[in-house]
């Protein structure tokens, strides 16, 4: 238990710092940035206290907001995906999730891709709609969501493959 807490604390701090100091300066093609800090929410242990999980996600979003001067945009998006995560888990992993025996490194690639993509697109859509806050710019919102989303998915998959433990 203690080990899980340490890993998640370190992951929280590292992801926030990496996001605000490195990844937000990529600006690929002028406006495409990956938002990989949500890996914390994606990889959070499944057997957990749901209240704590939602609250931690809020803290995560708020710390990114602090660095990026974006008000509460990231916090709102994070809280939402933290709240709907059980539904997405059930949808993408089916029976394994029901039995609570899931380990992300042991799941099939296809299932993992669906899970990542759904979470990331919900997060990005909410993030950019709140950030732009203007219904007449809906095309800009969708364009940003799609392009940044693809970038984020690629990076998240790469990172999970790179840092996954090989022990089985």
């Amino acid at each position, binding site marked *: 238990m203690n080990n899980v807490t340490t890993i998640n604390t370190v992951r929280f701090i590292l992801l926030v*710092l990496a996001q*605000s*100091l490195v990844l*937000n300066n990529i*600006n690929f093609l*002028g*406006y*495409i*940035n990956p938002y990989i800090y949500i890996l914390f929410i994606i990889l959070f242990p499944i057997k957990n206290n*749901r*209240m704590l999980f*939602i*609250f931690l996600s*809020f803290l995560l*979003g*708020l710390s990114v*907001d*602090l*660095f*990026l*001067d*974006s*008000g*509460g*945009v990231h*916090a*709102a998006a994070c*809280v*939402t995906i*933290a*709240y709907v995560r059980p539904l997405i888990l059930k949808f993408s992993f089916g029976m394994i999730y029901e039995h609570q025996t899931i380990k992300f490194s042991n799941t099939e690639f296809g299932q993992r891709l669906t899970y990542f993509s759904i979470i990331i697109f919900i997060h990005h859509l909410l993030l950019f709609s*709140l*950030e*732009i*806050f203007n219904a007449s*710019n809906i095309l*800009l919102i969708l364009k940003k969501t799609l392009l940044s989303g693809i970038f984020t998915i690629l990076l998240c998959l790469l990172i999970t493959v790179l840092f996954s433990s090989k022990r089985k």
Partner: protein
Amino acid sequence: MQQIFNFLIRNKSFLLFLLLFCVSLFFTIQSHTYHKSKFINSANFLTGGIYESVNGIGQYLNLKEENQKLLEENNRLKSILFNEEDKLKSEFILDSLLSNQFELTAAKVNKNSYSSTNNYLTINKGERDQINEDYGVMTAKGIVGIIDNTSNKYARVLSVLNTNSRVNVQLKKTNHFGILTWNGKSPEIVQLIDIPKQTPITVGDSIITGGLSTIFPRGIPVGTVTSFKLDETENYYNVDVKLFNDMTNIGHVHIIKNKDSKEITELNNPNE
């Protein structure tokens, strides 16, 4: 009563989600209102400090470029000093800058963003250096933005690349003035609205700050006109302006303090 408690316990995670979501929405809406986002900003002790230390590393990598910029500015200032013709052209900017009404402070940019629709910069001067809200920020090439939040050591600048930004500007050759805004699309092009249609405007005209606001002195360069068309009411021009500044690459800035701003504001609002 029992049922209410049961309901609360059963839906506790949903209620927590709702509460936190509303809190973040509140912060978001606040950040869309000029001068309201007091709590969540990068000018505080923690985030400002982290940006400061990381920026120290990045600064070495840009030394060459910064030197080049300084040389160019020195060159321009010297040519103003020595060259009678240039002196006439830039007379008004020197006038207002030298008349002791405006005080300049140099600062370093710790954080700069330009890819979102509401961009801010964080600079390493704050209340400790007598920097307050509503001071203008410029580089040698042109305007950058307006300070909208300060802490002890840092200040946050509302960039001209922010959909909430409004700056009073005018054409260089005539005195027709308008408002500089941004539509959130390209970090090179900003929009100038409320230019009356009588204005003799052409592509390539220079835009400078107007003296109407108390923030910027008259005559700071802004950009050049790239295209213009009449708006829906057919009374005003909507003008696209290409900024002189490369907003994606800003190292050092000057903060402009207007010593008379309090007096001017009091004169304009005698009731307060």
